Protein backbone atom coordinates (compact mmCIF):
# COMPACT_ATOMS: atom_id res chain seq x y z
CA UNK A 1 0.00 0.00 0.00
CA UNK A 2 2.91 2.34 0.71
CA UNK A 3 3.93 1.89 -2.94
CA UNK A 4 0.48 1.83 -4.50
CA UNK A 5 -1.50 4.52 -2.70
CA UNK A 6 0.51 7.55 -3.88
CA UNK A 7 -0.02 6.34 -7.47
CA UNK A 8 -3.79 6.56 -7.09
CA UNK A 9 -3.90 9.83 -5.17
CA UNK A 10 -4.12 8.10 -1.82
CA UNK A 11 -2.14 8.64 1.35
CA UNK A 12 -0.14 6.07 3.25
CA UNK A 13 1.27 6.90 6.68
CA UNK A 14 3.08 4.69 9.13
CA UNK A 15 2.10 6.19 12.46
CA UNK A 16 4.08 5.81 15.68
CA UNK A 17 1.84 3.12 17.16
CA UNK A 18 -1.50 1.38 16.73
CA UNK A 19 -3.35 3.87 18.90
CA UNK A 20 -2.24 6.61 16.56
CA UNK A 21 -2.95 4.53 13.42
CA UNK A 22 -6.60 3.87 14.18
CA UNK A 23 -7.27 7.36 15.53
CA UNK A 24 -5.60 8.97 12.50
CA UNK A 25 -7.91 6.88 10.29
CA UNK A 26 -10.94 8.08 12.26
CA UNK A 27 -9.82 11.69 11.76
CA UNK A 28 -9.35 11.15 8.02
CA UNK A 29 -12.76 9.47 7.85
CA UNK A 30 -14.31 12.59 9.37
CA UNK A 31 -12.63 14.64 6.65
CA UNK A 32 -14.56 12.53 4.15
CA UNK A 33 -12.09 9.85 3.04
CA UNK A 34 -12.34 6.08 3.06
CA UNK A 35 -9.70 4.82 5.46
CA UNK A 36 -8.23 1.55 6.64
CA UNK A 37 -5.57 0.23 8.97
CA UNK A 38 -4.06 -3.24 9.35
CA UNK A 39 -2.53 -5.03 12.29
CA UNK A 40 -2.40 -8.35 14.12
CA UNK A 41 -3.55 -9.52 17.58
CA UNK A 42 -1.45 -7.36 19.95
CA UNK A 43 -1.92 -4.39 17.64
CA UNK A 44 -5.68 -4.86 17.74
CA UNK A 45 -5.45 -4.90 21.54
CA UNK A 46 -3.86 -1.46 21.32
CA UNK A 47 -6.56 -0.27 18.94
CA UNK A 48 -9.35 -1.52 21.20
CA UNK A 49 -10.29 1.76 22.85
CA UNK A 50 -10.59 3.60 19.58
CA UNK A 51 -12.68 0.89 17.94
CA UNK A 52 -15.15 2.08 20.57
CA UNK A 53 -14.58 5.67 19.52
CA UNK A 54 -15.30 4.68 15.92
CA UNK A 55 -18.54 3.02 17.03
CA UNK A 56 -19.53 6.03 19.12
CA UNK A 57 -18.67 8.64 16.47
CA UNK A 58 -20.27 6.35 13.86
CA UNK A 59 -17.21 6.71 11.74
CA UNK A 60 -16.69 4.44 8.72
CA UNK A 61 -13.38 2.59 8.98
CA UNK A 62 -11.92 -0.75 7.87
CA UNK A 63 -9.56 -2.67 10.17
CA UNK A 64 -7.74 -5.76 8.94
CA UNK A 65 -6.43 -8.06 11.63
CA UNK A 66 -4.11 -10.95 10.83
CA UNK A 67 -4.74 -13.42 13.65
CA UNK A 68 -1.57 -15.06 14.96
CA UNK A 69 -2.43 -16.46 18.36
CA UNK A 70 -1.65 -15.31 21.85
CA UNK A 71 -1.93 -14.36 24.66
CA UNK A 72 0.60 -11.54 24.55
CA UNK A 73 3.22 -11.65 21.79
CA UNK A 74 2.04 -15.19 21.05
CA UNK A 75 3.07 -16.74 17.75
CA UNK A 76 4.10 -13.98 15.34
CA UNK A 77 3.92 -14.89 11.62
CA UNK A 78 1.89 -18.02 12.47
CA UNK A 79 -1.80 -18.56 11.88
CA UNK A 80 -4.60 -18.66 14.40
CA UNK A 81 -8.30 -18.09 14.88
CA UNK A 82 -8.07 -17.22 18.53
CA UNK A 83 -8.95 -13.53 18.20
CA UNK A 84 -12.57 -14.13 17.23
CA UNK A 85 -13.80 -12.71 20.54
CA UNK A 86 -11.30 -9.89 20.31
CA UNK A 87 -12.80 -8.77 17.02
CA UNK A 88 -16.24 -8.79 18.63
CA UNK A 89 -15.53 -7.50 22.13
CA UNK A 90 -12.21 -5.61 21.92
CA UNK A 91 -13.61 -2.31 23.16
CA UNK A 92 -15.50 -1.78 26.39
CA UNK A 93 -19.21 -1.05 26.45
CA UNK A 94 -22.28 -2.45 24.71
CA UNK A 95 -21.89 -2.38 20.97
CA UNK A 96 -22.29 -4.38 17.79
CA UNK A 97 -19.66 -4.65 15.10
CA UNK A 98 -19.30 -6.22 11.67
CA UNK A 99 -16.56 -8.84 11.19
CA UNK A 100 -15.82 -10.62 7.91
CA UNK A 101 -13.78 -13.83 7.57
CA UNK A 102 -11.91 -14.48 4.31
CA UNK A 103 -10.74 -17.98 3.43
CA UNK A 104 -8.58 -17.22 0.42
CA UNK A 105 -6.43 -14.42 -0.93
CA UNK A 106 -9.19 -13.77 -3.48
CA UNK A 107 -11.58 -13.26 -0.58
CA UNK A 108 -9.12 -10.93 1.15
CA UNK A 109 -9.60 -8.72 -1.89
CA UNK A 110 -13.36 -9.26 -2.27
CA UNK A 111 -14.20 -8.96 1.42
CA UNK A 112 -12.04 -5.85 1.89
CA UNK A 113 -14.11 -4.15 -0.82
CA UNK A 114 -17.24 -5.40 0.94
CA UNK A 115 -15.89 -4.17 4.29
CA UNK A 116 -15.52 -0.64 2.91
CA UNK A 117 -19.05 -0.73 1.54
CA UNK A 118 -20.50 -1.99 4.82
CA UNK A 119 -18.48 0.56 6.83
CA UNK A 120 -19.80 3.40 4.68
CA UNK A 121 -23.37 2.16 4.65
CA UNK A 122 -23.70 1.43 8.37
CA UNK A 123 -21.28 4.13 9.54
CA UNK A 124 -19.25 1.75 11.67
CA UNK A 125 -15.81 0.20 11.94
CA UNK A 126 -15.72 -3.12 10.04
CA UNK A 127 -13.07 -5.74 10.82
CA UNK A 128 -11.66 -8.19 8.29
CA UNK A 129 -10.42 -11.09 10.41
CA UNK A 130 -7.77 -12.94 8.48
CA UNK A 131 -4.82 -15.00 9.70
CA UNK A 132 -1.07 -15.48 9.39
CA UNK A 133 -1.33 -17.91 6.48
CA UNK A 134 -3.65 -15.92 4.20
CA UNK A 135 -1.71 -12.82 5.23
CA UNK A 136 1.51 -14.24 3.80
CA UNK A 137 0.51 -16.64 1.03
CA UNK A 138 0.36 -16.10 -2.72
CA UNK A 139 -2.66 -17.19 -4.71
CA UNK A 140 -4.14 -16.13 -8.03
CA UNK A 141 -6.50 -13.20 -7.60
CA UNK A 142 -8.95 -11.92 -10.16
CA UNK A 143 -9.39 -8.17 -9.98
CA UNK A 144 -12.83 -6.89 -10.81
CA UNK A 145 -13.69 -3.98 -13.01
CA UNK A 146 -16.86 -1.97 -12.34
CA UNK A 147 -16.74 -2.50 -8.60
CA UNK A 148 -19.92 -1.28 -6.98
CA UNK A 149 -18.95 1.21 -4.32
CA UNK A 150 -21.19 2.45 -1.54
CA UNK A 151 -20.85 5.99 -0.22
CA UNK A 152 -21.94 7.10 3.24
CA UNK A 153 -25.19 8.95 3.78
CA UNK A 154 -24.58 12.71 3.91
CA UNK A 155 -26.48 15.35 5.89
CA UNK A 156 -30.20 15.36 5.11
CA UNK A 157 -30.90 18.92 6.23
CA UNK A 158 -29.32 22.34 5.72
CA UNK A 159 -26.35 23.30 7.92
CA UNK A 160 -28.36 25.48 10.31
CA UNK A 161 -30.73 22.62 11.11
CA UNK A 162 -28.15 19.85 11.20
CA UNK A 163 -27.72 17.65 14.26
CA UNK A 164 -24.96 15.06 13.88
CA UNK A 165 -26.91 12.15 15.34
CA UNK A 166 -30.46 12.94 14.25
CA UNK A 167 -32.09 10.01 12.47
CA UNK A 168 -34.67 10.42 9.73
CA UNK A 169 -34.75 6.93 8.25
CA UNK A 170 -35.80 3.45 9.32
CA UNK A 171 -32.23 2.20 9.00
CA UNK A 172 -31.35 4.23 12.16
CA UNK A 173 -28.32 5.72 10.42
CA UNK A 174 -27.84 9.49 10.74
CA UNK A 175 -26.46 11.54 7.85
CA UNK A 176 -22.76 12.27 8.31
CA UNK A 177 -21.31 15.75 7.88
CA UNK A 178 -17.54 16.07 7.51
CA UNK A 179 -14.99 18.77 8.27
CA UNK A 180 -14.24 21.27 5.53
CA UNK A 181 -17.88 21.84 4.56
CA UNK A 182 -20.47 24.38 5.68
CA UNK A 183 -21.60 22.06 8.46
CA UNK A 184 -20.80 22.67 12.13
CA UNK A 185 -21.07 19.71 14.41
CA UNK A 186 -19.71 18.38 17.66
CA UNK A 187 -19.08 14.67 18.01
CA UNK A 188 -17.92 13.13 21.24
CA UNK A 189 -16.95 9.77 22.64
CA UNK A 190 -19.16 10.66 25.61
CA UNK A 191 -22.70 9.37 25.61
CA UNK A 192 -24.55 12.07 23.70
CA UNK A 193 -27.95 13.21 22.52
CA UNK A 194 -28.76 13.67 18.85
CA UNK A 195 -27.26 17.16 18.87
CA UNK A 196 -23.98 15.71 20.14
CA UNK A 197 -24.33 17.20 23.63
CA UNK A 198 -22.72 15.01 26.30
CA UNK A 199 -25.62 13.62 28.30
CA UNK A 200 -25.41 10.72 30.71
CA UNK A 201 -29.05 10.50 31.72
CA UNK A 202 -30.36 6.93 31.62
CA UNK A 203 -32.84 7.85 28.87
CA UNK A 204 -30.15 9.15 26.54
CA UNK A 205 -27.80 6.27 27.28
CA UNK A 206 -30.44 3.63 26.59
CA UNK A 207 -31.65 5.38 23.44
CA UNK A 208 -28.14 5.78 22.02
CA UNK A 209 -26.86 2.28 22.80
CA UNK A 210 -30.07 0.75 21.50
CA UNK A 211 -29.80 2.63 18.21
CA UNK A 212 -26.08 1.87 17.77
CA UNK A 213 -26.72 -1.85 18.29
CA UNK A 214 -30.01 -2.03 16.40
CA UNK A 215 -28.67 -0.37 13.26
CA UNK A 216 -26.34 -3.37 12.88
CA UNK A 217 -28.50 -6.23 14.15
CA UNK A 218 -31.54 -5.16 12.14
CA UNK A 219 -29.44 -5.39 9.01
CA UNK A 220 -28.26 -8.93 9.80
CA UNK A 221 -29.74 -10.47 6.67
CA UNK A 222 -27.94 -7.99 4.48
CA UNK A 223 -24.61 -8.18 6.32
CA UNK A 224 -24.34 -11.92 6.95
CA UNK A 225 -22.92 -14.16 4.28
CA UNK A 226 -21.95 -17.82 4.12
CA UNK A 227 -21.30 -20.66 1.70
CA UNK A 228 -23.16 -23.96 2.15
CA UNK A 229 -23.14 -27.39 0.53
CA UNK A 230 -25.26 -30.56 0.92
CA UNK A 231 -27.39 -28.77 3.50
CA UNK A 232 -30.65 -30.03 2.01
CA UNK A 233 -30.05 -33.71 2.65
CA UNK A 234 -27.49 -33.52 5.47
CA UNK A 235 -27.93 -35.05 8.87
CA UNK A 236 -24.67 -33.63 10.22
CA UNK A 237 -22.96 -30.44 9.10
CA UNK A 238 -19.50 -29.03 9.69
CA UNK A 239 -19.32 -25.32 10.44
CA UNK A 240 -15.98 -23.65 9.75
CA UNK A 241 -14.58 -20.32 8.60
CA UNK A 242 -11.41 -18.62 7.42
CA UNK A 243 -8.27 -20.58 6.57
CA UNK A 244 -9.46 -23.51 8.64
CA UNK A 245 -12.47 -24.06 6.37
CA UNK A 246 -10.31 -24.98 3.41
CA UNK A 247 -9.88 -28.63 4.33
CA UNK A 248 -13.59 -29.11 5.03
CA UNK A 249 -15.04 -29.70 1.49
CA UNK A 250 -12.61 -32.54 0.77
CA UNK A 251 -13.22 -34.17 4.16
CA UNK A 252 -16.99 -33.88 3.75
CA UNK A 253 -16.84 -35.43 0.27
CA UNK A 254 -14.84 -38.37 1.63
CA UNK A 255 -17.32 -38.94 4.44
CA UNK A 256 -20.19 -38.78 1.95
CA UNK A 257 -18.43 -41.42 -0.15
CA UNK A 258 -18.69 -43.64 2.93
CA UNK A 259 -22.43 -43.17 2.65
CA UNK A 260 -23.02 -40.66 5.44
CA UNK A 261 -25.14 -37.57 4.89
CA UNK A 262 -22.89 -34.73 5.89
CA UNK A 263 -22.72 -31.17 4.64
CA UNK A 264 -20.92 -27.99 5.52
CA UNK A 265 -21.32 -24.31 6.09
CA UNK A 266 -18.49 -21.83 5.72
CA UNK A 267 -19.12 -18.51 7.41
CA UNK A 268 -17.91 -15.49 5.43
CA UNK A 269 -19.08 -13.11 8.14
CA UNK A 270 -18.78 -13.83 11.87
CA UNK A 271 -20.40 -10.87 13.60
CA UNK A 272 -23.21 -10.09 14.01
CA UNK A 273 -23.52 -13.83 14.50
CA UNK A 274 -25.83 -15.38 11.85
CA UNK A 275 -28.64 -16.49 14.15
CA UNK A 276 -30.88 -16.83 11.09
CA UNK A 277 -28.52 -19.49 9.67
CA UNK A 278 -28.75 -21.46 12.91
CA UNK A 279 -32.55 -21.28 12.78
CA UNK A 280 -32.47 -22.43 9.17
CA UNK A 281 -30.25 -25.39 10.10
CA UNK A 282 -32.71 -26.21 12.86
CA UNK A 283 -35.63 -26.07 10.42
CA UNK A 284 -33.83 -28.42 8.00
CA UNK A 285 -33.92 -31.10 10.67
CA UNK A 286 -30.16 -31.40 10.89
CA UNK A 287 -29.31 -33.35 14.01
CA UNK A 288 -25.76 -32.20 14.72
CA UNK A 289 -23.44 -29.29 13.98
CA UNK A 290 -19.70 -29.89 14.27
CA UNK A 291 -17.84 -26.63 14.75
CA UNK A 292 -14.24 -26.70 13.51
CA UNK A 293 -11.98 -23.82 14.55
CA UNK A 294 -8.34 -23.09 15.38
CA UNK A 295 -8.96 -21.89 18.93
CA UNK A 296 -10.09 -23.30 22.25
CA UNK A 297 -13.74 -22.81 21.38
CA UNK A 298 -15.22 -19.47 20.43
CA UNK A 299 -17.75 -19.62 17.62
CA UNK A 300 -18.88 -22.95 19.09
CA UNK A 301 -20.31 -21.06 22.09
CA UNK A 302 -22.48 -19.01 19.77
CA UNK A 303 -23.67 -22.20 18.06
CA UNK A 304 -24.40 -23.74 21.46
CA UNK A 305 -27.06 -21.09 22.00
CA UNK A 306 -29.10 -23.18 19.54
CA UNK A 307 -28.72 -26.54 21.30
CA UNK A 308 -32.50 -26.69 21.57
CA UNK A 309 -32.52 -27.14 17.78
CA UNK A 310 -29.60 -29.52 17.22
CA UNK A 311 -26.65 -31.16 18.99
CA UNK A 312 -23.37 -29.30 18.95
CA UNK A 313 -19.89 -30.77 19.05
CA UNK A 314 -16.55 -29.21 18.24
CA UNK A 315 -13.05 -29.65 16.94
CA UNK A 316 -11.54 -26.70 18.76
CA UNK A 317 -7.76 -26.75 18.99
CA UNK A 318 -5.66 -23.60 19.50
CA UNK A 319 -3.08 -24.75 16.96
CA UNK A 320 -1.20 -22.73 14.34
CA UNK A 321 -1.77 -25.17 11.46
CA UNK A 322 -5.19 -25.53 9.79
CA UNK A 323 -6.87 -28.92 10.13
CA UNK A 324 -6.06 -31.22 7.21
CA UNK A 325 -8.87 -32.94 5.25
CA UNK A 326 -7.60 -36.27 6.64
CA UNK A 327 -7.80 -35.03 10.21
CA UNK A 328 -11.32 -33.61 9.74
CA UNK A 329 -12.37 -36.85 7.99
CA UNK A 330 -11.19 -38.95 10.94
CA UNK A 331 -12.96 -36.74 13.44
CA UNK A 332 -16.15 -36.73 11.38
CA UNK A 333 -16.16 -40.50 11.15
CA UNK A 334 -16.38 -40.53 14.95
CA UNK A 335 -19.33 -38.12 14.86
CA UNK A 336 -21.48 -39.99 12.30
Amino acid at each position, binding site marked *: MSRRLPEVNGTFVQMEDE*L*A*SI*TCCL*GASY*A*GLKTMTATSGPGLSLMAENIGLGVMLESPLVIVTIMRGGPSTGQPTNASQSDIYQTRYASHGDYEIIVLAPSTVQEMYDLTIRAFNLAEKYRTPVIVASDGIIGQMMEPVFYHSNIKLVERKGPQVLPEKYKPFEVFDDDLIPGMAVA*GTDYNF*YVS*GLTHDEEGNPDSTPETAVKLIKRLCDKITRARSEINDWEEKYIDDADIIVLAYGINARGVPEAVDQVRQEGYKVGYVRLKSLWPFPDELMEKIGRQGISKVVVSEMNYGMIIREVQRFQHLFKVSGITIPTTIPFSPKFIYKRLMKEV
Partner: protein
Amino acid sequence: MIPSDQLEEILDHPLKDRLNLHRFIFCPGCLIGTVITSITSCLIEKGLTSKDYAIVSGIGCTGRSSGCFKAPAFHTTHGRAIPFATGLKLANPRLKVIVLSGDGDLFAIGGNHFIHAARRNIEITVLCVNNNVYGMTGGQVAPTTHIGDITQTTPYGNMEPPFNLVSLAAAAGATYVARWPGYDTLRLQKSISKSISNEGFSFIEVLAPCFIQYGTKNKLGDAVEMLEWMRKQIRIKTDCPPHEATFDFKKGVIICGEFVDEEREGFSKRLKQIRDKVQSNKSK
Protein backbone atom coordinates in the same frame (compact mmCIF):
# COMPACT_ATOMS: atom_id res chain seq x y z
CA MET B 1 -28.32 25.47 37.20
CA ILE B 2 -27.46 28.98 36.11
CA PRO B 3 -30.21 31.50 37.17
CA SER B 4 -32.17 32.73 34.15
CA ASP B 5 -31.17 36.40 34.53
CA GLN B 6 -27.50 35.42 34.59
CA LEU B 7 -28.04 33.03 31.70
CA GLU B 8 -29.38 35.88 29.61
CA GLU B 9 -26.28 37.88 30.37
CA ILE B 10 -24.03 34.95 29.47
CA LEU B 11 -25.88 34.26 26.26
CA ASP B 12 -25.30 37.85 25.26
CA HIS B 13 -21.63 37.01 24.87
CA PRO B 14 -20.01 39.10 22.10
CA LEU B 15 -18.78 35.91 20.39
CA LYS B 16 -22.08 34.04 20.80
CA ASP B 17 -22.39 33.51 17.03
CA ARG B 18 -19.19 31.49 17.04
CA LEU B 19 -19.52 29.70 20.38
CA ASN B 20 -21.79 27.09 21.92
CA LEU B 21 -22.14 28.78 25.29
CA HIS B 22 -24.31 26.02 26.75
CA ARG B 23 -21.27 23.75 26.61
CA PHE B 24 -19.09 25.93 28.85
CA ILE B 25 -18.73 23.78 31.94
CA PHE B 26 -15.65 25.43 33.41
CA CYS B 27 -15.22 26.60 37.01
CA PRO B 28 -15.40 30.32 37.76
CA GLY B 29 -11.84 31.65 37.66
CA CYS B 30 -10.62 29.08 35.16
CA LEU B 31 -8.76 30.40 32.12
CA ILE B 32 -9.91 27.74 29.65
CA GLY B 33 -12.72 30.06 28.56
CA THR B 34 -10.19 32.80 27.87
CA VAL B 35 -8.22 30.46 25.65
CA ILE B 36 -11.36 29.46 23.75
CA THR B 37 -12.32 33.08 23.12
CA SER B 38 -8.73 33.95 22.15
CA ILE B 39 -8.73 31.21 19.51
CA THR B 40 -12.15 32.30 18.29
CA SER B 41 -11.06 35.94 18.01
CA CYS B 42 -8.05 34.85 15.94
CA LEU B 43 -10.21 32.81 13.60
CA ILE B 44 -12.54 35.78 13.11
CA GLU B 45 -9.62 38.12 12.57
CA LYS B 46 -8.19 35.82 9.92
CA GLY B 47 -11.57 35.66 8.18
CA LEU B 48 -11.77 31.90 8.65
CA THR B 49 -15.19 30.26 8.75
CA SER B 50 -16.02 26.82 10.02
CA LYS B 51 -15.39 25.18 6.66
CA ASP B 52 -11.76 26.28 6.95
CA TYR B 53 -10.91 24.70 10.28
CA ALA B 54 -11.54 21.92 12.76
CA ILE B 55 -11.07 21.75 16.52
CA VAL B 56 -9.94 18.55 18.23
CA SER B 57 -9.60 17.83 21.91
CA GLY B 58 -8.80 14.85 24.12
CA ILE B 59 -10.12 14.13 27.59
CA GLY B 60 -10.18 16.31 30.70
CA CYS B 61 -11.32 19.84 31.50
CA THR B 62 -9.75 21.26 28.36
CA GLY B 63 -10.92 18.11 26.60
CA ARG B 64 -14.44 19.46 26.95
CA SER B 65 -13.52 22.69 25.17
CA SER B 66 -13.95 21.50 21.56
CA GLY B 67 -17.73 21.45 21.97
CA CYS B 68 -17.68 25.15 22.78
CA PHE B 69 -16.74 26.06 19.20
CA LYS B 70 -19.29 26.36 16.42
CA ALA B 71 -17.09 24.33 14.11
CA PRO B 72 -16.44 20.76 13.12
CA ALA B 73 -15.40 19.79 16.64
CA PHE B 74 -14.13 16.45 17.86
CA HIS B 75 -13.98 15.20 21.43
CA THR B 76 -11.77 12.13 21.08
CA THR B 77 -10.30 9.59 23.50
CA HIS B 78 -7.73 10.30 26.19
CA GLY B 79 -4.42 11.29 24.62
CA ARG B 80 -5.48 10.77 21.00
CA ALA B 81 -6.38 14.29 19.90
CA ILE B 82 -3.13 14.70 17.95
CA PRO B 83 -3.40 11.55 15.79
CA PHE B 84 -7.08 12.36 15.09
CA ALA B 85 -6.03 15.87 14.05
CA THR B 86 -3.24 14.39 11.91
CA GLY B 87 -5.83 12.31 10.06
CA LEU B 88 -8.04 15.35 9.44
CA LYS B 89 -5.09 17.35 8.13
CA LEU B 90 -3.76 14.60 5.86
CA ALA B 91 -7.21 13.95 4.43
CA ASN B 92 -7.89 17.63 3.82
CA PRO B 93 -4.66 19.69 3.86
CA ARG B 94 -6.67 22.87 3.26
CA LEU B 95 -8.07 22.66 6.82
CA LYS B 96 -6.52 24.57 9.70
CA VAL B 97 -6.57 21.99 12.45
CA ILE B 98 -6.32 23.12 16.05
CA VAL B 99 -5.80 20.75 18.95
CA LEU B 100 -6.85 22.17 22.30
CA SER B 101 -6.18 19.91 25.23
CA GLY B 102 -4.62 19.68 28.66
CA ASP B 103 -1.16 18.84 29.99
CA GLY B 104 -2.15 15.41 31.29
CA ASP B 105 -3.85 14.47 28.04
CA LEU B 106 -1.09 15.71 25.73
CA PHE B 107 2.01 14.82 27.74
CA ALA B 108 1.21 11.74 29.84
CA ILE B 109 -1.12 9.38 27.98
CA GLY B 110 -0.63 11.25 24.70
CA GLY B 111 3.07 12.05 25.05
CA ASN B 112 4.20 9.68 22.34
CA HIS B 113 1.91 11.25 19.75
CA PHE B 114 3.09 14.73 20.67
CA ILE B 115 6.78 14.07 20.05
CA HIS B 116 6.12 12.22 16.81
CA ALA B 117 3.77 14.86 15.45
CA ALA B 118 6.41 17.50 16.22
CA ARG B 119 9.11 15.38 14.57
CA ARG B 120 6.93 14.95 11.47
CA ASN B 121 6.17 18.67 11.48
CA ILE B 122 2.53 17.99 10.62
CA GLU B 123 0.85 21.31 9.98
CA ILE B 124 -1.39 21.57 13.03
CA THR B 125 -1.52 23.88 16.03
CA VAL B 126 -1.46 22.32 19.48
CA LEU B 127 -2.54 24.49 22.40
CA CYS B 128 -1.87 22.98 25.78
CA VAL B 129 -3.77 24.47 28.67
CA ASN B 130 -1.32 23.65 31.44
CA ASN B 131 -2.79 23.62 34.92
CA ASN B 132 -0.05 21.39 36.36
CA VAL B 133 -2.54 18.80 37.57
CA TYR B 134 -5.30 16.42 36.45
CA GLY B 135 -8.17 18.79 37.08
CA MET B 136 -11.30 16.95 36.02
CA THR B 137 -10.50 13.57 37.54
CA GLY B 138 -9.89 14.87 41.04
CA GLY B 139 -6.51 16.60 41.16
CA GLN B 140 -4.01 13.80 40.70
CA VAL B 141 -0.32 14.41 39.99
CA ALA B 142 0.51 15.11 36.32
CA PRO B 143 3.79 15.04 34.37
CA THR B 144 3.75 18.83 34.70
CA THR B 145 3.33 18.96 38.50
CA HIS B 146 6.32 20.54 40.20
CA ILE B 147 8.49 18.78 42.78
CA GLY B 148 7.10 19.04 46.28
CA ASP B 149 3.57 20.03 45.22
CA ILE B 150 0.63 18.48 47.01
CA THR B 151 -1.92 16.67 44.88
CA GLN B 152 -4.55 13.99 45.48
CA THR B 153 -1.99 11.26 44.75
CA THR B 154 1.07 13.01 46.22
CA PRO B 155 -0.18 13.92 49.71
CA TYR B 156 3.43 14.11 50.99
CA GLY B 157 4.64 16.19 48.04
CA ASN B 158 5.42 15.26 44.45
CA MET B 159 8.66 13.31 44.07
CA GLU B 160 9.02 13.59 40.28
CA PRO B 161 10.40 16.51 38.32
CA PRO B 162 8.03 17.95 35.68
CA PHE B 163 8.46 18.16 31.92
CA ASN B 164 9.41 21.56 30.61
CA LEU B 165 6.93 21.56 27.73
CA VAL B 166 8.69 24.32 25.81
CA SER B 167 12.05 22.57 25.66
CA LEU B 168 10.34 19.22 25.03
CA ALA B 169 8.42 20.62 22.04
CA ALA B 170 11.52 22.34 20.66
CA ALA B 171 13.69 19.24 21.05
CA ALA B 172 11.06 17.09 19.31
CA GLY B 173 11.09 19.37 16.28
CA ALA B 174 8.18 21.79 16.61
CA THR B 175 8.66 24.77 14.28
CA TYR B 176 6.75 27.26 16.40
CA VAL B 177 6.90 27.16 20.20
CA ALA B 178 5.57 29.74 22.65
CA ARG B 179 4.43 29.99 26.27
CA TRP B 180 1.99 32.57 27.64
CA PRO B 181 -0.03 33.11 30.78
CA GLY B 182 -3.68 32.50 29.98
CA TYR B 183 -4.77 35.95 31.14
CA ASP B 184 -2.43 37.73 28.66
CA THR B 185 -4.94 37.53 25.84
CA LEU B 186 -3.29 40.11 23.58
CA ARG B 187 0.00 38.26 23.36
CA LEU B 188 -1.78 34.92 23.31
CA GLN B 189 -3.96 35.94 20.36
CA LYS B 190 -1.02 37.25 18.41
CA SER B 191 0.79 33.99 19.06
CA ILE B 192 -2.20 31.82 18.06
CA SER B 193 -2.49 33.86 14.90
CA LYS B 194 1.15 33.16 14.04
CA SER B 195 0.80 29.49 14.87
CA ILE B 196 -2.18 29.11 12.55
CA SER B 197 -0.16 30.66 9.73
CA ASN B 198 2.85 28.42 10.41
CA GLU B 199 3.09 25.69 7.77
CA GLY B 200 4.34 23.21 10.34
CA PHE B 201 3.82 21.89 13.85
CA SER B 202 3.06 24.72 16.27
CA PHE B 203 2.91 24.44 20.01
CA ILE B 204 1.64 26.98 22.51
CA GLU B 205 1.68 26.32 26.23
CA VAL B 206 -0.95 28.37 28.02
CA LEU B 207 -0.56 28.67 31.78
CA ALA B 208 -3.91 28.34 33.48
CA PRO B 209 -3.54 27.27 37.10
CA CYS B 210 -6.36 25.26 38.58
CA PHE B 211 -7.33 26.85 41.84
CA ILE B 212 -9.89 24.16 42.71
CA GLN B 213 -7.57 21.17 42.48
CA TYR B 214 -4.13 22.74 42.70
CA GLY B 215 -4.51 26.05 44.47
CA THR B 216 -6.56 24.74 47.38
CA LYS B 217 -4.23 21.84 48.17
CA ASN B 218 -1.12 24.03 47.90
CA LYS B 219 -2.71 26.92 49.84
CA LEU B 220 -2.40 29.45 47.05
CA GLY B 221 -5.63 31.31 47.78
CA ASP B 222 -8.64 31.83 45.57
CA ALA B 223 -8.63 32.06 41.78
CA VAL B 224 -7.66 35.73 41.63
CA GLU B 225 -4.98 35.40 44.33
CA MET B 226 -3.56 32.43 42.52
CA LEU B 227 -3.35 34.32 39.22
CA GLU B 228 -1.68 37.20 41.06
CA TRP B 229 0.79 34.70 42.57
CA MET B 230 1.58 33.42 39.09
CA ARG B 231 1.75 36.88 37.50
CA LYS B 232 4.52 37.90 39.86
CA GLN B 233 6.68 35.05 38.55
CA ILE B 234 6.18 35.72 34.84
CA ARG B 235 9.17 37.13 32.92
CA ILE B 236 8.58 37.81 29.24
CA LYS B 237 11.76 37.33 27.24
CA THR B 238 12.62 37.65 23.59
CA ASP B 239 15.27 35.47 21.94
CA CYS B 240 15.40 33.08 24.87
CA PRO B 241 16.62 29.62 23.77
CA PRO B 242 13.96 26.97 24.53
CA HIS B 243 16.18 24.99 26.91
CA GLU B 244 16.51 28.11 29.05
CA ALA B 245 12.77 28.67 29.27
CA THR B 246 12.60 28.17 33.02
CA PHE B 247 9.25 27.26 34.57
CA ASP B 248 9.92 26.92 38.27
CA PHE B 249 7.38 27.77 40.97
CA LYS B 250 10.01 27.27 43.70
CA LYS B 251 12.42 29.81 42.22
CA GLY B 252 9.46 31.99 41.35
CA VAL B 253 10.51 32.29 37.70
CA ILE B 254 8.37 31.51 34.68
CA ILE B 255 9.89 32.58 31.36
CA CYS B 256 7.25 33.35 28.75
CA GLY B 257 7.58 34.34 25.11
CA GLU B 258 8.24 32.86 21.70
CA PHE B 259 11.06 30.33 21.74
CA VAL B 260 11.00 28.76 18.27
CA ASP B 261 9.78 30.32 15.04
CA GLU B 262 11.37 28.70 12.04
CA GLU B 263 10.49 27.35 8.64
CA ARG B 264 10.70 23.67 7.84
CA GLU B 265 8.69 21.83 5.23
CA GLY B 266 5.48 20.40 6.69
CA PHE B 267 4.48 16.74 6.50
CA SER B 268 1.37 17.05 4.33
CA LYS B 269 3.35 19.17 1.86
CA ARG B 270 6.02 16.49 1.64
CA LEU B 271 3.41 13.81 1.11
CA LYS B 272 1.96 15.84 -1.74
CA GLN B 273 5.40 16.24 -3.34
CA ILE B 274 5.96 12.47 -3.18
CA ARG B 275 2.52 11.84 -4.65
CA ASP B 276 3.14 14.28 -7.50
CA LYS B 277 6.54 12.75 -8.20
CA VAL B 278 5.21 9.18 -8.23
CA GLN B 279 2.33 10.13 -10.51
CA SER B 280 4.48 12.07 -12.97
CA ASN B 281 7.01 9.17 -13.15
CA LYS B 282 4.15 6.83 -13.84
CA SER B 283 2.69 8.93 -16.65
CA LYS B 284 6.10 9.21 -18.37
